[in-house]
């Protein structure tokens, strides 16, 4: 008859597991990084000239070092950036002071009118990062709202509920054109 192997006492596995558990509990950080994704334009040497763009196609946004927001030279509240940008992008009444539109054929949508509008964002060295993000946020809100509107009119759904292909089409219809001015070096700091 085979010799009986005594059973291994397993009562301490719980303790070991607890020890490990507590270690991971303490070292765990669950926060996922979040933020606003942007793509920078490629680097250009100083001597290249900026492309000429008609004045009506540019929404001039300036954030000065006192954190005031100036839109086409007029001081406005940060919260007003969104409605003004939407108005600028849509140009519903074909106002001659608001951006032109070009016709372009887009997959899934056919020939549509695309706004030529570009948002130009310039900030001062002394602008606080918080204000800058607030302005960027307002702009993102404006673009997302316009995309939502367009998505609603064509597909009857909000932008986020569309399929990848449809999203791509709407993205081409409302391109997010934010141009950040090249920083100017001020002499003597």
């Amino acid at each position, binding site marked *: 008859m085979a010799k009986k192997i005594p059973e291994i006492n397993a009562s301490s596995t719980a303790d070991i597991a607890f020890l490990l558990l507590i270690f991971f509990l303490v070292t765990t*950080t669950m926060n996922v990084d979040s933020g606003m*994704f942007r793509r920078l*334009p490629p680097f250009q040497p100083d001597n290249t000239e900026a492309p000429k763009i008609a004045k009506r196609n540019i929404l001039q946004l300036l954030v000065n070092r006192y954190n005031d927001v100036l839109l086409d030279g007029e001081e406005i509240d940060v919260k007003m950036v969104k409605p003004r940008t939407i108005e600028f992008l849509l140009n519903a009444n074909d106002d001659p002071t608001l951006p032109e539109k070009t016709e372009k054929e887009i997959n899934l949508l056919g020939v549509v009118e695309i706004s030529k509008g570009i948002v130009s964002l310039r900030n001062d*060295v002394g602008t606080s*990062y918080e204000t800058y*993000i607030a302005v960027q946020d307002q702009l993102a809100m404006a673009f997302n709202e316009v995309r939502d509107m367009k998505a609603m009119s064509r597909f009857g759904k909000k932008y986020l509920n569309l399929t990848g292909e449809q999203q791509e089409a709407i993205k081409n219809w409302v391109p997010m054109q934010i141009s950040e001015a090249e920083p100017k070096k001020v002499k003597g700091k």
Partner: protein
Amino acid sequence: MAKFKKSGKRETPAISTASLPDVVFMLLFFFMVSTTMREVTLMVQNSLPQATQVAKLEKKALVSNIYVGKPIPAYQKAYGSEPRIQLNDKFANLEDIVTFVVAEREARNEEDRNSITNNLKVNSETTMGIVTDIKQELRKANSLRINYGAKQKVSY
């Protein structure tokens, strides 16, 4: 009276703890999987601004972090209270960014090198001067994908 007295010994049996290790192991695996260890010790103050249109950063392996902010009080004596850049575990100057980007690129697989996102974690009180400088350096290093670190704003 004696009628109702229970006869014989009635002890409650001991609760079996045999499944306790299983329960604990389950928890353990949950935390092991969800854990991310903090890779760097922060040497700068880093409270991010809030925004409504934020998205979560996916593919953590392809994110390289650049911290900007005032040095924390322990370092203020040595490094002053002007906003500084922190790369990995060291304070860095603007010129170091290009080297940093190249090193980050070298550390990734060939096919992933063009999809590295630079996560700018900038303290909300910082001024834009240093941020613009960093952006220029990143453009020079041709690492164009950036993420402005921001927290989800709680709706008001």
